[in-house]
């Protein structure tokens, strides 16, 4: 009886792990799948295999996947609304929502983990203090994008935003050597 419960849960978690759109959740589902797999091995009378599965599948591979995901797939976007006027901010809010929607679409199509941070600092301060992928300045006149020239994702993002949004978009490239912040290994 309880074995059947574990078998069915195993299949359910395998399907969830495949169908999950967010990679980070898929890794966690895979880890749970591995744990259930180890319990099933225990029921089938193979404790050696169960220990190996619990150590390798549930711990080591999950940590390796998470570290790989952390290094590669976070797309950091800094958003700065230039205007000080409260009425204008309310007006710009609609445009901001549209832009957020476009950014989320882009990130999910490229399998990136989107990270939008609101800021009030200028570009020089951001260059010196944080590491970013894109900085967006937003005002009534349009959108200013700042990013790195050799980052193909930035170029694709600029093209997507130009196609999706109906407001003037200016694309700028930051020089690599202007950036004072070096990400720590």
């Amino acid at each position, binding site marked *: 009886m309880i074995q059947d419960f574990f078998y069915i849960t195993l299949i359910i978690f395998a399907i969830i792990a495949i169908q999950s759109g967010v990679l980070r959740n898929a890794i966690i589902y895979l880890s749970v799948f591995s744990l259930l797999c180890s319990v099933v091995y225990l029921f089938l009378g193979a404790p*050696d295999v169960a220990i190996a599965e619990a*150590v390798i599948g549930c711990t*080591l591979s999950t940590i390796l996947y998470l*570290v790989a995901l952390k290094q590669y797939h976070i797309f950091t976007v800094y958003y700065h609304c230039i205007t000080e006027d409260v009425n204008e901010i309310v007006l710009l809010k609609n445009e901001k929502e549209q832009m957020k929607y476009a950014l989320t679409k882009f990130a999910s199509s490229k399998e990136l983990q989107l990270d939008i941070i609101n800021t009030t600092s200028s570009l020089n301060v951001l260059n010196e203090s944080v590491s970013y992928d894109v900085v967006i300045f937003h005002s009534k006149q349009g959108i200013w994008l700042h990013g790195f020239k050799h980052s193909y994702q930035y170029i694709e993002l600029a093209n997507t935003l130009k196609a999706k949004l109906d407001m003037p978009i200016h694309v700028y490239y930051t020089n690599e050597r202007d950036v004072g912040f070096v990400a720590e290994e």
Partner: protein
Amino acid sequence: MRNHSLLLRITMGAIYPFIIVFGIYITVNGSTSPGGGFQGGAIISAVFIVQYFITYEKTVSLHIFNHIEKILYLAIVIFTVLFIFQFGEITPHFIKPYYMVIMNILIGIKVCCGLSVIFYRFVLFESR
């Protein structure tokens, strides 16, 4: 990556000795209970992974791990082949458990070094 999580550090630091003891137990008792060299070595290599999460630095020398692994592989091959050639089918019965324990320990240390090298290579060198 710059700020260390205090919760993770303290919890992992408390678990740290238990992982070592559990790994050694599984490795040494591989011939009498479930477990063995591979599983024990994998558990001990988790110690080095925990060390990475505590300090975020390269605190181990991969060079030495590499050499240990190669030398231990040579030792395993020589030990097994010599043992089988020496005794063959008519092994005295009291020697066999010692052979099992020694092989388990050698395989355990080798697997531990190998998995640690794989992890640190991926984390430190492959991620830039």
